[in-house]
């Protein structure tokens, strides 16, 4: 295994374990001939070696020997792009972490690295002061939140400090606690992706967005997602601006939109799964910044599996293996309309389908007490047998921790109680009687709704409606009947799916 940085265009899906999913996905996109900004990635081993050397007292700085790797990779990137970091014309890059498994507490992104006073002056001549000042604010704000200080003056120092911040974030207490709870290896390490910046905030023909190759709620064969004109990606993900539906891109920049639709189709054919794609448009030119398999609502999982089998994108047995009896049942049950589901406050694993509303409570005792007056939804960090009686009186259940086989999920299925588990963005404090999802706080007594089929929590009371099942349900029935004869595991699975359709 090479310890060394590699250009993104040399990476493939098979490099995922060493270079992380982000870099591997970018490499695959470049190989498909799609427009992706050039860059390089450092393998997880670089992070591990840096920490080993540091722990052994063998390195003066955490970055240590990695600096030589960066120098070599940077020289190659400069020759690929014809730009120079800290030189003329200036190379400006983003620095992102890329652990094989995403985890809370890890540094995410530092934007506009290399934006020195000289680079600012140079870019301002071409694109104006206002734009350059906006970029510099992007650098200082992302640098501060990731590295905890001001960016250094020299471009190379900025790059080194940003990469070191990624390494450092591997050991934040929150990331360490997360790995311990999940049983993830401490020496898994994080990769680093350094990539030429493209500017969604450059002019009125620029912007940034996220798009799904098919609708992740319904599975419908339309591009769906969001787009914001004149913005950089970080503002978007950070929720600082309200984006518009991606159809707005079709009106504003029709050429970029049609190129994006083509790229989405290419990626879908290549990965044989619905894709979740981040993109930026710079002065009308489209760039793809990330792609991954999309998380789909149960209906979308069913619809796309059957559609893709009909399109010949996947085999019939692959389509069936993507579906579970649990998921099929969730599609047929009454549910919340997709426009309501989009207002979800947080999401976790769907553990038992059904929709329930009630007053939020954070302990079994309070659930029992409050249930004398009104319906309650029990929200716990996780459940134990001491919570059982609270679960008996609750209309719905939600936990911050746990997987599909945790105590809460097992009991909820036993009781047929709408349940979502593993809402990891949520912190529950039963003592204080609150739950927090980022800056959103739920207090005891607040009306909430859980949708156990979709694994989401919403504020307020929402009513489920019975939908007409999508026509793909018939396609599934037909496929499953054909596979009944197959016998063995496949036949057994087909029978279970048919039973769920009853």
């Amino acid at each position: 295994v090479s310890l060394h940085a590699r250009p993104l265009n040399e990476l493939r899906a098979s490099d995922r374990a060493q270079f992380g999913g982000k870099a591997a996905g970018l490499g695959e996109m470049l190989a498909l001939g799609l427009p992706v900004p050039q860059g390089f990635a450092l393998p997880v081993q670089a992070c591990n070696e840096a920490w080993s050397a540091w722990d052994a007292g063998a390195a003066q700085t955490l970055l240590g020997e990695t600096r030589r790797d960066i120098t070599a990779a940077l020289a190659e990137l400069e020759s690929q792009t014809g730009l120079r970091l800290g030189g003329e014309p200036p190379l400006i890059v983003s620095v992102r972490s890329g652990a094989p498994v995403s985890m809370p507490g890890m540094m995410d992104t530092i934007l506009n690295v290399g934006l020195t006073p000289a680079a600012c002056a140079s870019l301002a001549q071409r694109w104006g002061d206002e734009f350059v000042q906006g970029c510099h604010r992007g650098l200082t704000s992302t640098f501060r939140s990731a590295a905890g200080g001001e960016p250094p003056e020299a471009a190379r120092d900025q790059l080194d400090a940003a990469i070191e911040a990624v390494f450092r974030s591997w050991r934040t207490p929150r990331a360490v606690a997360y790995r311990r709870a999940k049983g993830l290896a401490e020496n898994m390490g994080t990769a680093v992706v350094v990539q030429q910046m493209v500017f969604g905030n450059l002019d009125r023909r620029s912007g940034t967005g996220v798009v799904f190759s098919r609708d992740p709620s319904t599975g419908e064969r339309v591009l769906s997602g969001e787009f914001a004109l004149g913005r950089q990606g970080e503002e978007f993900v950070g929720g600082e601006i309200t984006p518009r539906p991606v159809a707005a891109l079709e009106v504003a920049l029709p050429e970029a939109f049609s190129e994006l639709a083509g790229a989405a189709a290419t990626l879908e054919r290549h990965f044989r799964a619905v894709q979740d794609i981040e993109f930026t448009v710079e002065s009308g030119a489209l760039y793809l910044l990330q792609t991954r398999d999309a998380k789909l609502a149960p209906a979308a999982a069913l619809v796309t599996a059957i559609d893709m089998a009909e399109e010949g994108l996947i085999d019939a047995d692959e389509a069936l293996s993507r579906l579970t009896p649990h998921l099929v049942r969730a599609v047929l049950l009454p549910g919340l309309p997709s426009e309501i589901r989009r207002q979800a406050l947080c999401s976790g694993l769907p553990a038992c389908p059904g929709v329930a509303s009630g007053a939020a409570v954070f302990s079994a005792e309070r659930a029992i007490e409050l249930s004398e007056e009104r319906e309650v939804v029990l929200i716990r960090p996780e459940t134990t047998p001491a919570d059982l009686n609270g679960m008996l009186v609750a209309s719905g259940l939600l936990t911050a921790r746990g997987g599909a086989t945790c105590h809460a999920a097992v009991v909820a299925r036993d009781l047929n109680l709408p349940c979502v588990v593993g809402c990891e963005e949520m912190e529950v404090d039963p003592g204080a009687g609150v739950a927090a999802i980022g800056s959103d706080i739920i207090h005891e007594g607040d009306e909430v709704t859980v949708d156990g089929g979709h694994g989401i929590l919403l504020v307020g009371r929402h009513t489920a409606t019975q939908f007409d099942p999508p026509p793909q349900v018939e396609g599934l029935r037909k496929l499953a009947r054909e596979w009944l004869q197959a016998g063995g595991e496949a036949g057994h699975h087909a029978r279970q799916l048919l039973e769920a359709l009853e």
Partner: protein
Amino acid sequence: VIERDDLVRYLGLQPGCQLEAIGVFFGAPDDAAAAFEALAAEGMVRQTARGMCLLTDSGRARREELYRAEAAACAAGPVVEAYEAFEPINLAFLGWATTWQTRPSGEGDQPLLAQLWEIDAELQPLLDGVSRELPRFGYHQRALVDALKRVEAGENDWLLSPAKASYHTAWFILHQDWLEALGRERED
């Protein structure tokens, strides 16, 4: 006869239980209502419209006071020593439960159950010692034995079912009571 303070502790471990469950746990079905009413008269407990039994604020205060005194009294001695011997057995049981849940259906149940009998055989003598210090642990012992009797009768639900007074449920309640008695927090 159900001890007043034992009932206070039990209601902390199983908030919302029915009178019937109290009778089963204490092996005194006929005494449960009277014991509960006596505590209710003191304002320590109350029953919801659905018949669920709960501690009141003063019941909770009593419970904390009881455990605080117990933790001080047990600080160094046989209850702590037994708990240290319990920790590896607890891990063995949790590992066993995972193996049981993920076993291929119906295969090799008997050898696996034999492993559980061994785990239980290690646990019970430890609990004998604890019960000499804290007599209420005898109730936990009996809950474990009752669950295993059901399993021996072929009702495998009584191994792990979270909705029953299964072996796992009894184990959990015992573990929680023990931690509280030592003034410790659960480590997960």
